Structures are given as C-alpha cells and as structure tokens.
C-alpha cells in the first residue's frame, strides 16, 4: 500500500510507472450478449490513474460497446466493471457520470440547438445540487452554482480552444469545434476518467497534432484518459498502454511498442491468420 502513495518516478516513460499505480477502472471478465450475438467476450483490462490507455481494434471489435458498458448504456451480461473499487455495472447513467466517468461520442451528439456555452454548462450542472425550488426563487446558493458553472464552462471552452465561438449554436459550429466541444462538455462533469470515442475521426494531420496535445494536457490536469482511435500514429504517439480487441475479445495488452510488435495484432489488422503470422 505504501508504494502506491509514493510519487511517480520522474524518469522513464509514463507506462513504467503507470503499472505500479492505483487501479482506477477494472473491467473484470465482462461479457455482453445481445440475443445470440456476443459483443464482448470475457474482456479483462485495468486502467490506472493518470495514464492514457488506448483501446483499439478493427471495426466491430467491440470498442464502443465496451465504452457503453462502462458508462452504463448497457449492463454487462456477465462480469463486473469496478470504478475505484466499487462495482458500477447496472448503475444509472447519470450516477456513473457523477462518480467521475465522462465520455464523448463517436457520432457527435451535442445538443444542437443550444449554444456551445450552454452545452458545457449542462455538463457542469452534473454536480450542482440546487434544483427547481431554489431556481424558481433564485436563492443565493443557486445563483452561486450558476456562476461557478459559467466560470467552469468559460474556462473549459478556453482550455479546448473554442472560446471564440462560445455563443453560437453548436450545430452551426465547424466539425473540429464540435469535436472539441464534446470534450469540453465531458470535462465539465469533472471526471476522473475521460473516455474519448474516436475524437480524431475526420481530422487532418494538423488537427490531429492539436488533439494529441490536448489529450496530453487533459492528462496533465490529473484526468485519466481512455482513448478509442483508429489512427495508429496518434494512438502510438499519445498512449501509455494499449488494449487491443478483436471480435469482442481482448487479444493484446501492453505498451505501444509491445502491442506494435505483437503478431496477433498485425494479424487482426491485416487479416493474416494467426498461425501464419
């Protein structure tokens, strides 16, 4: 236990110390079936605090399903998902968000007719306690929460770099802005774990580079990041560890270098049979 309380060593790649650190999220033998379809098959992996974990795999491997299981959209058929030691499978979605897991969506799902600012404010409201009675009468405590939420939203919009268009309806924002707005909205819920579902989809190399920096900056604020991404350069560049899924099963788990050298991973991506590789 004492080891866990010590600060991480200053030297060495992040993955070296990530392994010794506190597990934040454990996906424990999770199976998810939809009728006869097995979307996830006994998936196991652990996410440690302050690391950036990549979740990769060919299309249909179960990456987004895994996200959905973690954020409460689906309840695992078998197995458990533990967040900071407590089982969260089967909890209500907004409770999971409050516990500290936030996510973005593969297909952008902002509130299209709300401004960018309002979108982020909705996220910030997740931890606000005052409700209808105090809002009706504008009690001071409610007022304070509204003000704090606004400040947090301003800060986050600045942080992801889209503050210049915060008063525009989110559906009128350019694609790159919408992607970053989703990240800001997720961060507004004050997560300890941020799950990004293909945040770089449709980005050009320069935008991808910006995103890479952004993800690092998010991690530096103390947020653990789980990243689904197809762009191998991005994944290899930013993650500390990578988990590879194929057909709902985990086929590899390790540092980018380890995973990159794994013949099973090559096979999964290039379609070579395992024994031929």
């Amino acid at each position: 236990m004492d080891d866990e309380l010590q600060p991480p060593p200053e030297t060495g790649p992040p993955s070296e110390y990530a392994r010794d650190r506190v597990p934040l999220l454990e996906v424990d033998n999770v199976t998810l079936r939809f009728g006869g379809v097995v979307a996830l098959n006994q998936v196991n992996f652990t996410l440690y605090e302050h690391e950036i974990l990549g979740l990769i795999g060919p299309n249909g491997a179960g990456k987004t399903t895994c996200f959905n299981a973690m954020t409460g959209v689906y309840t695992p058929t078998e197995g458990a998902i533990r967040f900071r030691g407590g089982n969260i499978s089967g909890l209500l979605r907004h409770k999971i968000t409050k516990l500290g897991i936030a996510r973005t969506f593969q297909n952008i799902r902002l509130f299209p007719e709300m401004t960018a600012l309002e979108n982020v404010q909705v996220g910030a409201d997740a931890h606000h306690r005052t409700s209808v009675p105090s809002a009706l009468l504008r009690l001071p405590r409610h007022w304070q929460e509204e003000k704090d939420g606004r400040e947090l939203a301003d800060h986050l919009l600045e942080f992801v770099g889209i503050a210049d268009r915060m008063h525009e309806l989110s559906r009128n924002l350019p694609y790159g802005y919408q992607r970053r707005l989703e990240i800001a909205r997720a961060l507004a819920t004050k997560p300890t774990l941020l799950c990004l579902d293909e945040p770089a989809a449709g980005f050009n190399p320069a935008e991808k580079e910006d995103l890479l920096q952004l993800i690092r900056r998010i991690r530096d604020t103390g947020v653990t990041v789980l990243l689904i991404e197809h762009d191998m350069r991005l994944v290899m560049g930013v993650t500390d560890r990578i988990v590879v899924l194929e057909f709902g099963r985990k086929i590899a788990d390790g540092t980018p270098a380890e995973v990159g050298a794994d013949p099973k991973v090559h096979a999964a991506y290039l379609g070579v049979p395992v024994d031929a590789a």
Partner: protein
Amino acid sequence: MTELNDRGETLVELDKTDKRAPARRSDDKKPGVRARVRSAWGAPGRWFNGLPRPARWAVGVLGVVLLYLLPNKWFYEYLGIPLGSLYIPLYTTKTDMAGVLFYSSWIILLALGLNIVVGYAGLLDLGFFGFFAVGAYTVALLTSPESKLLTEYNWLKSPWPWLAAMPLAIAFAMLSGVLLGWPTLRLRGDYLAIVTLGFAEMIRIVAKQQDWILNGDRGIPEVAHPPGKNSDGTPIFLFDFRPYFWLVLTVIIMLVFLIRNLVRSRVGRAWVAIREDEDAAELMGVPVFRFKLWAFAMGAAIGGMSGGLWAGQANFVNSGTFSLENSILVLAAVLLGGAGNIAGAILGGFLVIYIPDWLRSVGDVFGLPESITVGGNTYDISVTSLRYAVFGVVLIVVMIFRPQGLWPNRRRAAEIEHRKKEMVVGG
C-alpha cells in the same frame, strides 16, 4: 457581450441577426414575399429587444396596464370606439368582453403550465386537464357548504375560505402529477401521450360516475369565491368577470417571472437537453427522470391552480368541464402560440378562446345570414354555430404555414426547421 436579454437569449445572437438584416437590404436582389413577411413579423420583437433596458421595462409596464384596462367598457368608449358597430376589431359583441378575457386568461394559465411539459421538456401530455380537474374539485370540496365532506362525512366543521383551499388544490394537483409521472415518464413520445390521455379520461369518468363524494353529474354547487370586499361592503368577486380576470392576470404575471427564472437556470437547460437528446443528456449527468418529473409536477401545479381559480369563479363544479376537448384546446393553444416560449403560450391561450368568440360577433358585423334553406331543409350556418369549424381551419392553416407556432422560441423553431430538412434528405 454575455448579457442575457429578456427572452433568455444571448445578445450576441441578436447582434448576428441585426447584422444579417442590413446585409440583405444592401443586396440588389429584392427579398421574396416570404422573407418580407417573416421580417415584418419579427419587427416588433426586434424593435423591443433593441430598446435599452429601462425602456423595455416601461413598454412592458404600459402593456400590462393596457391588459388591465381591456375588459372595461368605458375604456373603449373613452377611446371613441363605437361598440356594436362595424369598426370594432377587438371588442366581442355577442359575449361579455370581460368574460372572454377571463376565459382566455384561464386558458393562458393552463397553456403556461402545459408549455413547461410540452414546450420545454418535450413531453407530449394529452391529459393536462386532469390536473385542472384535481384543482377544481379540491377547491369545490373544501369550500362548498354542500360538499359531502361536510354534510355526510363531517370531516370539516365548516367550509374553508377559498384562499385557504388554493394551496391544497395546488399541492394535490402537483401530487397527482408526480403519481402519474412516476410510472409513466419512463415512456417516451406517443406512449406517454396515450397514458396521459387515459389519465384525464379516467378522472373525468370517475367524476361522472361516482356519487359518494364528487356527486357525479350533479356536481358541487356553492363553491366559495375569492375573498375581498368593495368599499361599500359588497364582495368584489361575484358575478362581474372583471375582478376574476384581474386576479388571473396578476397570477399570470407572477408566474411568468417564476417560469423565466426556471428556464434560464440549470433546470431549463436540463429540459432542453432532454428534449434534444435524452440519452446524451443522461450521459452528461442530467438526472433525466427527475427533471421530467419536475416538469410534470410544475405543469400539474399550474394546472391545479387554474382549476382552483376557475372553480372560484364558476361557483359550480361537475364532470362536464373536464372533457377531452379542453385538454386538446390547451394543447392547441401551446402549439398555435409556439411551444417552448412563454410569450407564445400566452398568445396561443388568448387566441384559442378569443378567436371563436370574436367570430361570434363577426356574423353581426358583416351581416352574414344566420341560416340557409336548401330544398326545404333549413341549415344553420351562422358564424356562431360554425365558429369552431372556422377556428379549426385557422389552426390547420397556421400549422401548415407556420409549424413552429406564431411566436416560437427561436431555438425550437430551428429544431423544427432542422427536422423538416432531415425528412427531405431522408436522414
């Protein structure tokens, strides 16, 4: 730049529209008819929003004073508008203007409540009148000396005053909203509409059939009026509609401020988020069910308040008032006016009562025939008897050409526009 204007929209958005307008004017191309109509339609709003804040308040106060003057006959006489002649655009001749205004204000109150449920939270509630019934019956049972609570069960020693019964009426309506919402708000869209429809019908049929407390069709007479005496000792609230209108108008004005507080807070944001993408809202930490239930409860409370006010005026409550048509009428008011906008709900509530009653006088004004004889049969074609048909046509026309309502919330209008495009593209 980040100040909010009166409608809860950011000024920056307004700046944008202001910039767009002159740009269009500078074009050589003439704007189309549609664009010109649209621009003229929005002109008063733009003018109002362009005023400095104190001026906006002044205009608002003036408007309110005008509203308080509306039911007075002397007001029209003072203005030199000859009543009962061709040239009265506003005053209704076949019915008491004060009465029309009272019924409008009463529907406006209901529309404000339903607007929270349908307009903001996007929950289709077809049984809104059920809550009205709960409020009306609560007041009737507590304040009538004929109430069986007194005469048969001796639960009450003497009838309550109207004012004391009102909070209970609101509370009971709210409670019934929560009780109805608890099991049903997990349903979405059409399913919820059917369940709420069933609820309102259930209340009506129970009120009609059962005899041990609600007196079935015979109803409950002698419901108390609101308190207050004139200087000469006669009660203010009796048969004159005007004080009732002023009372409801005052309630409406207070409610408008309260509802505005709500929709500009996290509550309003949560409702809009739920309406736009329920799943995404929940994953962003919005307790969807709780806020839907709040929307339902707030709507129900306002419905109950409206019921209590109505019972206080009508003096008599039976199951006849709670027909399905009235639920639909309130919904029509919200949709006609523009769902998701307080001003729209008020406009819609006014029009759905006012138009049919105004049409009654139109027949006189234009000297239209009362009946027509074809082949020995006489058909009644007076505007009075056809007024709801005419009103129906008006509703249909408005919904075809302006599906977002007459005075919509800008955001909500954009949503509808967006959906139309999606349908065209087939997405």
